[in-house]
């Protein structure tokens, strides 16, 4: 399913130009070189960008402009990069951040 808005009554038309390949969780995707990761992934139908570090619940974009940090992913080995602010580049390796092995609540209970 193509989620790109190629025709628009006011903003005009766009060409469907896929010129960059990147991987997300080892799967190859194509996107447009001037767009952020979050947009490229959504255009490919990918909504879940990571799983919450503590609860493991799925998370996607929320604010889309860098404020909320919900869309953080690992890019070329660097963790916690905001997918909404990171332009995709050829060969970029993107990975989800998953649930962490250490349950955070354990020590919190002891402290209280």
């Amino acid at each position, binding site marked *: 399913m193509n989620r790109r808005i190629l025709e*628009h009554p006011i903003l005009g038309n766009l060409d469907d130009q896929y010129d960059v390949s990147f991987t997300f969780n080892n799967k190859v995707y194509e996107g447009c070189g*001037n767009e952020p990761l979050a*947009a490229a992934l959504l255009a490919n139908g990918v909504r879940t960008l990571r799983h919450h570090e503590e609860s493991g619940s799925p998370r996607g974009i*929320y604010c889309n402009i860098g404020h909320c940090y919900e869309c953080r992913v690992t890019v070329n080995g660097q963790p916690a990069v905001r997918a909404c602010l990171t332009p995709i580049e050829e060969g970029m390796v993107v990975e989800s951040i998953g649930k962490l092995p250490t349950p955070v609540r354990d020590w919190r209970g002891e402290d209280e």
Partner: protein
Amino acid sequence: MSKVVIIGAGPAGLSAAITCAKKGLDVLVLDEFMKAGGRLLGQLYEEPDGSWWNGIHESTRLYNQAKDLGIQVKLNTPVNHIEKVDHEWVIYTEENTFYTNHLLLATGAAESPVPVPGWTLPGVMSVGAAQVMTNVHRVKPGERGVIIGVNVLSAAIAMELQLAGVEVACMTLPKMNKITSDATDPKKVLNSLLPVSHMAPSEFIKLGSKLMRNDFMKKLGVTFYPKKGVKMWNIPIQLRKAVIEIYGENQVEGVTIATITSDGEVIAGSEEKIPADFVCIAGGLYPLAELAGVAGCPFYLIEELGGYVPLHNERMETTLDGLYIAGNITGIEGAKVAATQGITAGLSIARNSGIIGLEKEIQESVRSIDHTRDRAHIQFHPNVKRGKRKVQEQWKAYYNG
């Protein structure tokens, strides 16, 4: 002379930069986004004269003007801290540290979240996120969406989603809002929106009728159905119902809405499921002022301006030497007001940099902010002028003790 540094490449920041450069100052603009324009990018509405305000065109125009004047614009550059060391402002980014005697914060606004059960599911996003995805990145946030929160911003974005061919199933209120409504009279229904939208209902109706002038909008239609509630641009606005939860296994599958009593209690058995693959949450905007906070600016809570604003005067100076603010950090308003504030800030910076003979120009610029505000046909807060007066009273009180 050190470079003027401006944080934020939106209408306020770019206008300030252009003004400074025209006065012969060397300017550096920083922005964390990948494109210049700030949230002007993605704005799309019809002017009273029937022309369209296209935020992407406006942003490009400002950006090209800045580049032509030799202004350095560094994008993809988040600022994580500022501080005053000796007589200079120090600006920290991941890659570089910048120094200046004149620093303008034009950081804009952020969206207030409204927590609703299920709101962490992928597919739930702020209404501004949907706007950026649709109009800037040209990717559909989904095929069919529900908007939670009825206000000026969400109404405008609902219309923009429709323009892009995205279906808006309905606009509704979150459960926490206790809205009593008289659904027999559309005017009263719109009146009931007032506490939520901070917007005069007459403005709401006027906005609708203006958009009606456009042929395309005529097709979308503006019809009031008193008995069923109200429709705007063919989008049902559910005022007597509220979203109980956003449901879905691994991502949004829809929302459950229910009729609520005047106390906000759910009437049992009234629950209804609306399928959707995305949900927008619209909680309004507040000034994004963290950097002014870490710098040490005094703040005042001014409801009419959308929240806490750093103390400033009409010339966009703060109480801190060499620190200026402009745009939505001074209160929630439209891009045109932000741009005139940017021009004023730019002139103040030029004057404080030693350029003489600017007094008259500054006074005219201050007046043009008021003129622009008076002419604005979309106002986020109806009492913004009262809010602005309050800030000026606080400014006087601060210096007269």
